[in-house]
């Protein structure tokens, strides 16, 4: 019945491409040609890592921004997918790794991550607000301690190293340029997928549930089922982020999805902004920049380099204080200032 179409429900957005400002095209082109002038470090560590963290934070943005569900278990979903790739695929821990080919272990990772996220969602959607956070945090720490203590499957404290991407099409996907494009592709894919789904019946229903769950069931929607389905969907960007993260560092260990990284994902999503799928990527970029360069700044100032978390914390505080909608909110505020009519002081055009 519903056809695959690119039209939208609102008239001012009749054409899919006609209203995209030139700046966006330029930015896209910039990302595509970046490897021609950027260093390996910038491609691999700065952008590659930003795209990965952005994808994992995007899965939280989807749940929190559209569904009003703050799940702290998204990093755990990512970590689980990374573990499955290491366990089913190839790693330096030959006693455990099964050496299955990529076309088995990657789908297995996605499937297991999706099932896990669905179960977590099924548990979490019965609660609201702070209780959702508590339940998902409990799941995340349980996963951390379980992987650290289980040696049969998860190889305990040391986890897995030597987890490399498959040499598909004869390309070494860990080469900085190849990895840059690989992570860019998946980040862009999930960015557009989330944007697209946000205007579908599923996405609109989720936003309706965020605004008013009771009314949604009085319109014929099964609120619980929609919330659980949102967790299932959000598992995929997180899982792909987790697999890429494992390949990037060639290892996965309990610390990858420890409580610290779990909180970092929340911070990234909130710093960036939960209103739009671009927020998590903006947040991830800021986080990666701070994490990569704050040590140099701190050392230059004569402070201990290990205090970079302090800078991130301060940045978080400042952004949340000035703009609850994160950097996206700040950006929108600044843009609004320029649109104000000088005579009547009102916005000339609404966003």
């Amino acid at each position, binding site marked *: 019945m519903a056809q695959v*179409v690119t039209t939208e*429900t*609102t008239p001012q957005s009749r054409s899919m491409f006609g209203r995209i400002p030139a700046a966006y095209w330029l930015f896209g082109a910039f990302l595509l040609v970046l490897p021609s002038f950027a260093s390996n470090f910038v491609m691999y560590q700065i952008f590659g890592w930003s795209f990965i963290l952005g994808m994992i934070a995007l899965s939280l943005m989807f749940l929190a921004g559209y569904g009003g569900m703050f799940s702290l278990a998204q990093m755990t979903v990512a970590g689980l997918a990374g573990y499955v790739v290491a366990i089913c695929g190839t790693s330096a821990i030959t006693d455990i790794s099964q050496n299955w080919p990529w076309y088995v272990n990657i789908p297995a990772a996605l499937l297991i991550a999706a099932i896990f996220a669905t179960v977590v969602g099924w548990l979490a959607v019965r609660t609201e607000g702070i209780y959702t956070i508590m339940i998902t945090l409990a799941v995340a720490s349980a996963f951390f301690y379980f992987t650290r203590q289980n040696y049969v499957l998860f190889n305990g404290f040391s986890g897995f190293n030597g987890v490399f991407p498959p040499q598909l099409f004869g390309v070494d996907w860990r080469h900085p340029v190849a990895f840059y494009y690989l992570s860019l592709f998946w980040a862009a894919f999930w960015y557009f997928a989330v944007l697209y789904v946000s205007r579908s019946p599923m996405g609109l229903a989720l936003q309706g549930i965020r*605004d008013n769950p009771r009314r949604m*069931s009085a319109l014929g*929607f099964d609120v619980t089922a*929609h919330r659980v389905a949102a967790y299932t969907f959000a598992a995929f960007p997180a899982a792909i982020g987790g697999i890429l993260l494992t390949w990037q560092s060639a290892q996965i260990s309990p610390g990858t999805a420890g409580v610290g990284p779990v909180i970092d994902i929340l911070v990234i999503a909130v710093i960036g902004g939960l209103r739009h799928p671009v927020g998590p990527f903006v947040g991830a970029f800021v986080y990666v920049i701070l994490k990569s360069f704050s040590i140099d700044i701190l050392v230059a100032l004569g402070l201990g380099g290990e205090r970079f978390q302090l800078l991130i914390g301060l940045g978080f505080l400042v952004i949340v204080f000035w703009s609850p909608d994160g950097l996206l909110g700040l950006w929108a505020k600044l843009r609004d200032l320029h649109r104000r009519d000088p005579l009547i002081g009102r916005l000339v055009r609404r966003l």
Partner: protein
Amino acid sequence: MRSGVQVSGRLSAAGASNALELRGVTKRFGALLALNDVSMTLRPGERRAVLGSNGAGKTTLFNCITGDFLPTAGEIRLYGEDITVFPPQERIRRGLRRTYQISLLFAGLSVLDNIYLACRGVLRRRFSMLRPGRNEPALLSAVDLVELAHLQEVRDSLVSHLSYGQQRQLEIAMALAGAPRLLLLDEPAAGLSPNERQALVEILQNLPEHIGYIIIEHDMDVALRVAEFVTMMHNGRVFKEGNPRELENDAEVQALYLGEVDG
């Protein structure tokens, strides 16, 4: 399957079963008896007003019929089907609709999106991840409802930017989505200007004949113009039933009503 439900609905509308049947519906909140043995029968297409002072149990009655609360005792039948323990969405999919006394809308979505969701909720493929096409039936009927509720000018505005009156109109439009058979209208005229009230009365009077409704209304003027039968509630009980004229001239009803107005 869905068309089967609709067909059987039309058959029963031809005279087989009642639109709504309440038998001994009781709702207790701790020590408070909010509804006490309420029985009520509505023919298909019947338009009824429920009157009563604050705390008479009118909204609780609506909440039990829509399934927001499960009744402590009693039975609720919608077009012959026992829906007493159904979750709200199952009742809505069977043609029941409701508006809320305090607008419950989706503030972060546009007017059209709100109505679109209402249209989509009673159709299949609610989990579809494909964007609606320009000719999707639910989208087309949403556009029609925008016009019916005179909301064309604010169609793409966020609901949080609407005036109070416009929000009330949106409530009505959302209740008319899909193929409604029985509407529960909880004080739809509250807070409206005289002009808006007139528009509301016209919308209700122009509804297709097979759509029945129960309207909770404090404004006797509105209630008596849009209802053919009146149920008076008091302290969780049905106090009196009759046609508008009878009740208007009933001494007990007048005493109750004037007492409320004075007090």
